[in-house]
């Protein structure tokens, strides 16, 4: 791009969002070039600059977003939407330069609707802020991922995020009622006023999980709930994973706890021992039940009876309460994996019939092919029909090549090996972190000819291919 054309576009973008909200400053470009993706972090750590946007723009609403997308389409400039940058899959990295559209100025809380039990807000709102708004009126969002404080509403929607209380309250895609979306051509649309209907396919679910490739979500109505009268925890230790899966599956035919987390023996002996203090060998499982006090008492009785059948040792409430208190502590620097280690979380999901097989197959594949990698896992989101694996590989810093290109290759090779093993055994490419640029290449392997459905929608909505190129395998 010539300097002259650069200035033409810059002034048009300034006109769209205000001069102070359109930046070409180094600090803004750098800030929007590194997200939580290991590769971007490693790259920056080695003193290299990641691909950067040429213009960082922050529209305040759908109208300004629309103006930006019209400019981008006219000049055929890539647009990468950025929430808060907490994604692990590189979905927000402007790999082709162009415009980075930061949504955080769209952070207004428009309405806390006690009749409809939702908060209507801009998608740039940090989720913790809408949780605070709910708490101030005695409600809660019940969406509690580890990234609650550092991710936007739109960020969670863009990659189908999930929180620790998902078994009772659902994923983010279960928590949204209506949305406002700006299409790549600049048209502003609204999805249907109710999320359940027979008026054709669900528009919400087309954009949720689309990772900025089909448009920009600018406003959303997110569900709120009454605070539970009672919330009780119970820790258990299982002899083996098979017993734990069977116990969990049987429990879910009877009622839904809010939190269900099973840790494999390796993670029980490492993270759980360190943060929660469980010293015994086995597979630790933490359960939370909550709601009306009388019902919680009844559910506790059913829980204890069900798990006793599978030989689970009842560890009481202490470990579970500690876990709840420390649930975010795991993710602070000093507790969490960090550079110089090489690491990743390959979350996958499958029905009960295959989930344990996938776990063992992935563990074997990683540990056999990459003996320098440790493999630990927990199972943290459970349904009546199956559950997900949150499996991690960790390579010690001493075993990670200092050369960034070699480190890059090692990282990609481990990921390809792990995710392909999951796919081969009946798993899905990802459960709740999304695809981004990290897993785009594996989307075609997951979907085969079904990928043309996504490609067709993309081609129709974004004929110039400007929206978040090379993400989601599109």
């Amino acid at each position, binding site marked *: 791009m010539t300097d002259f054309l650069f200035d033409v576009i810059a002034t048009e973008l300034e006109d769209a969002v205000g001069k102070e909200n359109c930046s070409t400053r180094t600090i803004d470009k750098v800030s929007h070039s590194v997200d939580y993706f290991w590769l971007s972090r490693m790259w920056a750590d080695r003193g290299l600059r990641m691909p950067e946007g040429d213009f960082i723009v922050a529209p305040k609403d759908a109208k300004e977003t629309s103006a930006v997308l019209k400019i981008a389409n006219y000049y055929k400039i890539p647009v990468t939407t950025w929430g808060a940058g907490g994604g692990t899959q590189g979905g927000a990295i402007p790999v082709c330069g162009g415009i980075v559209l930061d949504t955080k100025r769209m952070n207004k809380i428009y309405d806390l609707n006690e009749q409809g039990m939702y908060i209507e807000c801009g998608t740039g709102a940090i989720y913790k802020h809408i949780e605070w708004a709910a708490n101030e009126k005695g409600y809660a969002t019940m969406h509690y991922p580890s990234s609650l404080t*550092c991710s936007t509403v739109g960020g969670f929607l863009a990659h189908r995020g999930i929180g620790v209380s998902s078994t009772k309250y659902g994923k983010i895609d279960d928590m949204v009622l209506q949305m406002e979306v700006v299409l790549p051509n600049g048209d502003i649309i609204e999805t249907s006023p109710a999320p359940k209907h027979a008026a054709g396919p669900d528009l919400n679910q087309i954009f949720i999980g689309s990772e900025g490739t089909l448009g920009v979500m600018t406003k959303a109505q997110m569900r709120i709930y009454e605070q539970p009268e009672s919330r009780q925890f119970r820790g258990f230790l299982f002899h083996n994973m098979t017993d734990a899966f069977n116990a969990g599956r049987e429990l879910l035919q009877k009622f839904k706890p809010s939190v269900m987390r099973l840790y494999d023996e390796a993670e029980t002996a490492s993270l759980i021992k360190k943060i929660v203090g469980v010293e015994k060998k086995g597979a630790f499982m933490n359960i939370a039940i909550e709601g009306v006090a009388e019902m919680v008492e009844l559910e506790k009785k059913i829980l204890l009876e069900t798990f006793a059948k599978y030989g689970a040792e009842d560890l009481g409430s202490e470990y579970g309460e500690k876990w709840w208190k420390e649930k975010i502590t795991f993710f602070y*620097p000093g507790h969490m994996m960090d*550079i110089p280690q090489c690491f990743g979380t390959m979350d996958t999901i499958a029905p009960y019939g295959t989930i344990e097989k996938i776990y063992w197959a992935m563990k074997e594949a990683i540990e056999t092919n990459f003996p320098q990698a440790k493999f630990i896992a927990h199972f943290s989101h459970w349904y009546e029909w199956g559950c997900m694996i949150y499996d991690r590989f960790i390579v010690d810093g001493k075993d990670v090549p200092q050369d960034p290109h070699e480190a890059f290759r090692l990282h990609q090779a481990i990921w390809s090996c792990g995710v392909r093993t999951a796919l081969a055994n009946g798993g899905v490419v990802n459960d709740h972190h999304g695809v981004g640029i990290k897993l785009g290449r594996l989307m075609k392997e997951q979907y085969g000819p079904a990928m043309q459905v996504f490609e067709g929608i993309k081609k129709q909505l974004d004929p110039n291919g400007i929206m978040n190129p090379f993400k989601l395998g599109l």
Partner: protein
Amino acid sequence: MQFTQKSKEHIDACRFCWMCHHVCPIGNATGLERNTARARALGLSMVARDSVEYSEDIIGNVYECSLCGGCMTDCVTGWDPVMFTKEARLGAALDGKLPEYVTTMISNLQEKGNIYGAEKNANIPEIAEGDILFFLGEDVRAKGCAKNAVELLKKAGVSFSILKDEPNSGYSMDFLLGAAAETKAVMENCAKVLSNYKKVVCYDPADAKVMKREYKEWGIDLKAEVVTFTEFVAGLIKDGKLNVKNSGIEFTPQDSPLLARDLEETEPVREILSACGSIREMLLNRNYTMLAGNLIMNEYMPQVMETVAANRWTNAKNVDAKVLVTTSPAEYILLAATKPEDMELMTIEEAVLKCL
């Protein structure tokens, strides 16, 4: 720009961590990614790796932090963005790269005794009545009013002095330059004057903060005992020197981060307000408070400060608060400028005077 090993360690811990994103009053006001502790750390980590120059816009970003310590308080591991931000400011000074607005404020301080370049406030009385010094601070002298505070102390029968030529405490120099030799010189000069008194009652939490923390940390010899105004007034009520009656008013305290976080003082203001009426807390209170404004930053980011103050009014409104009470003159001035019509703003001394 050379960082100490300690700063480097904190910068590298924070550069890839977003956990405190939600508590930054500046980031919440601007919605800009660069106004997060992690973005600032990332920029500085790249400066430390020579992949980015310590340029005007990286330095500008270093001055967009209020040093309120919200991020530090929120961090369960104890990483400290305030520490490395102050060091980066000192580095900019040592490299001769200070932004113009900073050099202007420092020149003002040297010439007029305050960063605002304000002339001496003729309305502030000089009182010489004892060995308690009532230290007003530069914000009140240049921009505020201490009339009610003086009246309150008189009603309590306290004998106190107010200086005509009050030295600068060094808070603003510490904010702008960090631990520079010039900052220390300003503080030493202040300590010398204050040491003529037995007790110093600091009206402004900013001055109390440096006198009680930085003076000690840097070995500056201050002989006088330093107490905050809130602590002092709470003592006067407890000792029966101020006979307050419960007015039935429901007050909502705006905890100054300087008091609540830097000095870990949260209860005196509540003791005072409980004696005067009742308390309705905001969701973010005590050491989890949110800054309501900084007058130094108001010199170069006035629109952002306006939003910071307005956001705090929103917090108050969300819990149906009616009367917001501040202990910081800077926060009072900025909150007053954005006050919603249906809400009331008081200083702590106004709240007490109303109940005598």
